[in-house]
């Protein structure tokens, strides 16, 4: 839950104001691509895709059921409309997104590729391999948003690995890095509209977020990386979020 609530504002901004997509034609060759590289935020993505019209919201009632497709991580594109890559193992989404961005260049398609990464995911070497190739190739149609909630599974992300200064790292790797409050919708939309950079650099938006955002007893409490809320906690969380019971 914590990981979903920290990125759901970013997903909302992307799906409702940025991505050029048609839910009725999810495989259109010219569509923008989005990859949830932090695959453990899939429950948030499933909600956003349903709200955006990729499938009926009622399908979400099968969440977690045996034989279904909705669970902890996104299934493959062949198994759910709107999914571009099956993630869950960290450090895969950005390289795959880079491949899609390069494919757009090769095929003379003007689409953009977006990916949301977690700060903990930046532990993975493959993220930095992709960062260097994207910069070398000046892949200007690639934009990542890092959900920088300052936590990873077992501790503070700046303590487990030397993550700071995160924006400077991306700048040093040749990216146009921009920092923003990841829960300020106006600010988020403003920085997303700054992509693509005019000088050809790929874009890295470092979105400062709060794990469990919007639910008082979840905010910045890393127990909610794994915890499942009780029935009472669900009611309380819905009240705080203004969601009908």
């Amino acid at each position, binding site marked *: 839950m914590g990981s979903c609530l920290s990125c759901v504002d970013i997903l909302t901004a992307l799906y409702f104001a940025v991505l050029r997509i048609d839910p009725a034609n999810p495989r259109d060759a010219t569509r923008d691509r989005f990859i949830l590289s932090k695959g453990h935020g899939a429950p948030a993505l499933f909600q956003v895709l349903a709200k955006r019209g990729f499938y009926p919201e009622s399908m979400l009632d099968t969440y977690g059921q045996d034989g279904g497709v909705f669970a902890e991580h996104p299934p493959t594109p062949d198994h759910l409309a709107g999914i571009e*890559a*099956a993630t869950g*193992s960290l450090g895969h989404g950005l*390289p795959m*997104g*880079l*491949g*899609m961005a*390069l494919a757009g260049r090769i095929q003379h398609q003007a689409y953009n590729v977006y990916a949301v990464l977690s700060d903990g995911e930046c532990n993975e070497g*493959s993220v930095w391999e992709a960062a260097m190739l994207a910069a070398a190739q000046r892949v200007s149609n690639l934009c990542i948003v890092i959900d920088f909630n300052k936590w990873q599974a077992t501790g503070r992300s700046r303590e487990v690995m030397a993550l700071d200064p995160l924006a400077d790292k991306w700048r040093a790797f040749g990216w146009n890095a921009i920092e923003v409050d990841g829960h300020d919708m106006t600010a988020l939309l403003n920085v997303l509209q700054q992509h693509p950079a005019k000088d050809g650099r790929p874009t890295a938006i470092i979105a400062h977020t709060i794990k469990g955002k919007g639910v008082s007893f979840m905010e910045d409490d890393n127990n909610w990386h794994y915890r499942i809320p009780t029935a009472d906690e669900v009611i309380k969380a819905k009240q705080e979020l203004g969601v009908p019971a």
Partner: protein
Amino acid sequence: MRNAFADEMTKLAQQDSRVVLLSGDIGNKLFDKFKAVDERRFYNCGVAEANMMGVAAGMALSGLRPVVYTITPFTTTRCFEQIRVDACYHKAPVVIVGTGSGLSYAELGPTHHSLEDMAILRTLPGMRVMAPCDPAELRLALQAAMHEDGPVYIRIGKKGEPAIHPQAPNLKIGKAIVVREGTDVALLSAGTIMPEVLKAADLLKAQGISAEVVSFHTIKPLDVAYLAAASKRVKLVATIEEHGLIGGLGSAVAEWRAAANAATPLICFGTPDEFMHEVGSQEYARAKYGLTSENIAVRVRAALSKT
């Protein structure tokens, strides 16, 4: 084989605008002709194989036909999880080519040996695993891989491998090619060890033993139709590969034999469960591990005498 690979890739790029070549910082100059066809379809991905495999999968999911090329350990064991998740789980038509396979780079030490690649890639759902025996089979394997709807792994040698087939054979993925017919023993060979296997067949012939020599250029899917028919005809089946005895062609045939309850005896030639700590040429390494025509002939003859 390297030159045949570069030449065939150039031809494929000319024929098909979806073909893209990704190299892990090797093949300087080797791909100049490919680049001359379309520089935008060649990517030197640097010494960063995990990313290279993910990039290839992303391209394949976008309608391209990427071919990933570097030295075998680095395009297989180094980035196994990217092959598993990005290519296989997504059923992305990525062609993975490992060069200098087996003991081709014996003198470079075990970091550059690949004696596990077929074993681990064979475990992945949907992956095709190929080991062509000569440049002609490699070209045909590449052409065939372009028509597959999922990932294909092709392990090749380095340079100077002799032509085995006098004319281009009819190569189908998963269908073994009989190079020489025989009646006593079937010598099933995967990859560039084939010249030793043919020489072993010659030695056996001189001793009055008729050996069938077969190129098992595909170890997955395995040609079980051939195995079923051959095991009824011959008295002994032998597998030969420049690969570990665990998990390669020999294991694949043994798995089939157990499941099919085939009675024909099986002997396997390959490398043992160890790293090679001394330096040496490919010939030295082959001899050390019994992958020579003489040793194959001796062991086959001994095994036949017990049937």
